C-alpha cells in the first residue's frame, strides 16, 4: 500500500512539473507575440499598437506613418518627446555605406539631402522578398521617381549570395550590400522597407509587406495626397509610366506598349538622342528640354 502511495506521489509531482513547464512556454510565446505586435516592454498587452493599425496610443506612442497589413510585422512605435516638433519624433536616419555586387565601394547619402529615400532591405534567399524582386525586375515595376530615391540594401557579401543577387538585380537598380546599414536601422528581417525624410534626416516610415506595390499602396494611403508622400512609380520614367502633372497618379500602359516604347527609347538614348534633341524637331524648336536643361 505504501509503495502505491509513493508511486502515485511521484507521478503527481512529475505531472506538476510538466504542467508548470507548459505554462511557462505558453507565457514565453505570448510575450513574443506581444512584442511582434509592436507592444512595448512593460506595457499591458492591450495598450500596444496592433499590426495593421496606425492609431496612436495616448501617452505612449505617436501614430505610425503607415500601417502594415494583417500578419505582417509592425514597426516599433516611436516615443514622443516634449517640446520638439513632429520631425524630431522620428528616429534618426543613417547614410548607407557598403559594397556593390562588383566589389565597388559605395556611399549613399540619405541624411541632409533634398530627396527622400525609400530603402528596401531585401535578401536573395528570403521567400518574402520574391514579390519585391519580381516587381523590381519587371519593366513596369515600381521604383522611386521624382524626388524620391529607391535603394535596395542587402547584407554584406559574407552573409549573402553575390551570384544570386547578381541574377536578381535588374539593370539600373541601386543595390548596396551593407550589414552595417541593417544594424544602423535595426532591421528585424527581410523584406523590410524604411522611408527616410531627406531634409530632416529622420525615418518617417517603416514596415513590411509582400510586394513593393503593396507597401507603396500603404504609404499612399497613410500620406494621402500630401506633397511629402514618397511616390513610387516606374523604373523607367519614360513612356510607359508618365506621371500625370495634375494628380501625380501614374498612367499605366499595357506591357507590350511599355516594352516597345522602352526599347525605342533605349536605342535613341544609346545613340545620344535625348528629349529635346534637334533631330526630333526638324521644323521648329522643341517644347520640352532634355534633363538638366531647365536652368
Amino acid at each position, binding site marked *: 500500500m505504501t509503495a502505491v502511495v509513493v508511486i502515485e506521489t511521484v507521478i503527481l509531482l512529475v505531472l506538476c512539473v510538466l504542467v508548470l513547464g507548459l505554462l511557462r512556454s505558453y507565457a514565453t510565446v505570448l510575450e513574443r507575440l506581444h512584442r511582434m505586435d509592436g507592444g512595448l516592454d512593460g506595457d499591458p498587452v492591450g495598450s500596444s499598437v496592433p499590426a495593421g493599425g496606425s492609431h496612436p496610443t495616448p501617452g505612449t506612442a505617436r501614430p505610425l506613418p503607415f500601417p502594415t497589413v494583417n500578419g505582417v510585422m509592425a514597426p516599433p512605435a516611436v516615443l514622443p518627446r516634449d517640446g520638439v516638433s513632429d520631425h524630431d519624433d522620428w528616429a534618426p536616419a543613417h*547614410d548607407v555605406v557598403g559594397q556593390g555586387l562588383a566589389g565597388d565601394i559605395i556611399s*549613399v*547619402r540619405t541624411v541632409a539631402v533634398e*530627396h527622400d529615400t525609400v530603402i528596401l532591405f531585401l535578401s536573395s534567399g528570403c521567400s518574402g522578398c520574391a514579390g519585391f524582386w519580381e516587381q523590381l525586375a519587371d519593366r513596369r515595376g515600381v521604383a522611386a521617381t521624382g524626388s524620391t530615391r529607391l535603394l535596395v540594401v542587402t547584407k554584406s557579401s559574407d552573409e549573402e549570395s553575390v551570384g544570386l543577387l547578381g541574377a536578381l538585380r535588374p*539593370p539600373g537598380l541601386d*543595390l548596396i550590400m551593407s550589414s552595417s546599414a541593417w544594424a544602423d536601422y535595426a532591421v528585424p528581417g527581410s523584406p523590410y522597407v524604411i522611408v527616410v525624410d531627406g531634409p530632416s534626416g529622420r525615418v518617417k516610415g517603416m514596415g513590411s509587406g509582400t510586394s513593393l506595390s503593396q507597401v507603396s499602396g500603404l504609404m499612399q494611403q497613410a500620406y494621402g495626397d500630401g506633397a511629402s508622400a514618397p511616390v513610387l512609380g516606374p523604373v523607367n520614367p519614360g513612356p510607359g509610366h508618365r506621371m500625370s502633372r495634375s494628380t501625380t497618379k501614374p498612367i499605366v500602359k499595357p506591357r507590350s506598349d511599355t*516594352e516597345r516604347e522602352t526599347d525605342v527609347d533605349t536605342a535613341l538614348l*544609346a545613340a545620344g538622342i535625348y528629349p529635346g534633341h534637334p533631330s526630333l524637331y526638324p521644323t521648329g524648336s522643341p517644347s520640352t528640354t532634355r534633363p538638366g536643361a531647365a*536652368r
Partner: protein
Amino acid sequence: MIAEPIIGGHGFSVTLPATWEGRIYQRPTPSAAFSPRNRAAPGSNLADAGAGWLGEQTRPVLHLGNFALPADRGDYGSGAVETMGPQNTFIAILEFGRECLGTALYASVGLPRVSPEGFDPNALQRRIPGQAGCQFFFTEQSRPMCLYVVLGSGIDAPALSAQVNMVLDRIRVAAG
C-alpha cells in the same frame, strides 16, 4: 553633427563632406564585345558581359557628387550628369595604364586644383545646356590619371569650383 563617411578602395580614399556621396569601382573585364546596336537590343544583359569593349583593360575609377549618383554611370559620368541641378557638381578621377607613365600628357605631377576660368561647356563629354566642365591629366603616386569635373551651372563656377577644390583636398591616392 553628422559623421563624415570615409570610403576607400582601389588605392583611393576620400572623406566625404556633407551631402557628397561617392563610389569607387573598377569595371569587370569585358567578356563580350558590344556595340550601340546590341547594347540597345531587347533582352541584352550587359551586366553579364561587362560594359566596355572586348580586350579592354579596366582601371579604378572614383566618382564623387553632391547629388544622388545613379547606379548606372559611364566612367565620365554619363547617366549622372543629366540628373544634375544647377548647384550640383560631379567629379571623376580615372586611372590609366602604366604605359602612360612618363608621357607628355601625364607630365603634370600631383592632383590638380580647378579654377573658375578653366571651366568651359566645350570641355564636356556631351554638352548639356548650362553645364561646364574641365579635364586635367596628371600623375599622382606614380599612377597616371585624369580628373574630369562637371559643374551644374557654368555661371556659378566661382562658388562651385571652390567646393570642388575642397573635396579634392580630401582625396588620398595610394602609391601605385
